């Protein structure tokens, strides 16, 4: 007859062994995700599982907002209505002008045989929550790949560019704000057309123009809009305003600090720019061409 240890003595591998197994697994995941992006499918599956919890967790804030709406007074509603009517009236006049200008622009472009300008398609989205992480400037919106949101699409509000979709789940997507460290936007100065690359600093409300020569023509209050030469952001979206310029004599580059125009830190509703542009084919990299030719020769 065989005897085995009673079940209460069976505890499996020791804690240290388990720690090593799970740490190794986690490290493997970290490397696979950071270096090779192998784990996107797994992340998508996990995101679908967590989705109901995320929606429920976002509910209290929505309830607080709705309760606040419920108790607005008749007077404030009337006031708001009057203000909106006035704004609508003013915007209507501007829009008429814009239509005329657009028609004229189209005609002129046709005469010049220039490419048509991009027509922007917008989809409204609601912000579910800001990433609960002091290190990254990210927000999560309630539209995902099921509603044609794709990674790389720009996100804006009524005042300017807010960020870019960096990850799209089926019903949610992650938006990296322009203030995130490592987020770059190609911009153009409205006043004189100077092009530059605007980069986030990782702190709320500040952006930076790097590698601008000391004698470059920048002034406080200059408005920067997207230049559109990257093929990601449509041209002409307002991005930031220059707020501070430091020109030190011993430095090659000026320090130019800007503040974003879009409500980067406070928002409830955003617009995702969904229209895609047809870009001319990229010029082939010369080095790659050489590399591609070499094997043929040998």
């Amino acid at each position: 007859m065989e005897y085995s240890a009673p079940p209460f003595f069976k505890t499996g591998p020791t804690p240290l062994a388990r720690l090593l197994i799970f740490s190794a697994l986690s490290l493997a995941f970290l490397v696979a995700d950071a270096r090779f992006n192998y784990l996107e499918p797994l992340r998508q599956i996990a995101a679908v599982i967590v989705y109901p919890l995320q929606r429920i967790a976002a509910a209290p804030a929505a309830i607080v907002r709705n309760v606040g709406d419920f108790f607005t007074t008749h007077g404030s509603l009337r006031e708001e209505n009057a203000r909106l009517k006035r704004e609508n009236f003013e915007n209507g006049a501007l829009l008429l002008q814009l239509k005329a200008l657009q028609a004229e622009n189209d005609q002129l472009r046709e005469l010049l045989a220039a490419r048509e300008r991009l027509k922007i398609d917008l989809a409204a989205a609601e912000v579910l929550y800001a990433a609960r992480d002091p290190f990254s400037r990210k927000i999560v919106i309630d539209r995902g790949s099921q509603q044609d949101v794709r990674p790389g699409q720009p996100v804006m509000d009524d005042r300017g560019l807010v960020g870019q979709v960096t990850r799209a789940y089926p019903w949610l997507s992650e938006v990296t704000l322009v203030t995130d460290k490592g987020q770059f936007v190609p911009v153009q100065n409205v006043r004189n057309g100077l092009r530059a690359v605007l980069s986030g600093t990782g702190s709320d409300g500040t952006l930076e123009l790097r590698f601008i020569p000391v004698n470059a023509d920048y002034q406080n209050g200059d408005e920067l809009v997207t230049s559109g030469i990257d093929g990601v952001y449509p041209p002409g979206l307002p991005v930031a305003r220059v707020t501070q310029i430091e020109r030190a004599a011993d430095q090659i580059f000026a320090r130019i600090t800007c503040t974003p125009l879009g409500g980067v830190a406070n928002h409830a509703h955003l617009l995702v720019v969904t229209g895609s542009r047809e870009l001319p084919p990229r010029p082939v990299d010369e080095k790659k061409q050489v590399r591609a030719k070499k094997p043929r020769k040998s």
Partner: protein
Amino acid sequence: MADTRIEHQEILLPVRAGFIALTLVTALMLNLLPWSGVALWFKPDFVALVVLYWCIEQPRKFGFISAWMMGLVMDVADGTLFGQHALAYSILAYAGIVLHRRVRMFSGTAQVVHVFVLLLMNDLIVLTIRLVAGAEFAGLQYFIGTCVAAALWLPLGALLKLLLRPKLDPDQF
């Protein structure tokens, strides 16, 4: 000291797996609340706290697998690198399981000191991975959340013990 020993002798209902799962889901929901602005600095990692609590109180019913899975869920919800919370929670679970007998011997405040060190280690691991991945150190405010989490240790213990206290049978009297 004396009354804590009595507290340990208190007879509680056996902890069911469903109850543990419920506390974890609640902690996850608290983590997922739309924290923003200044509140973000004070936000404790509720999931780490609950994981540590069950590792110390019920090391036979709660272990590495659950801790690790919770870590993966946190990584997805936060959109961070896959595995950083998983790694931190595995190490936290190890520390909790190894130290559970010692921590349970101590009185309330001494427990808080132990727990603070363990939670600090957890946050330091997450911080290290972030820094290695190229983030910039956000300042010492990052550790306010750790202090808040440690301060929540005793209220959490009291709450869970309250929920597990057997209901008195009214027919007995």
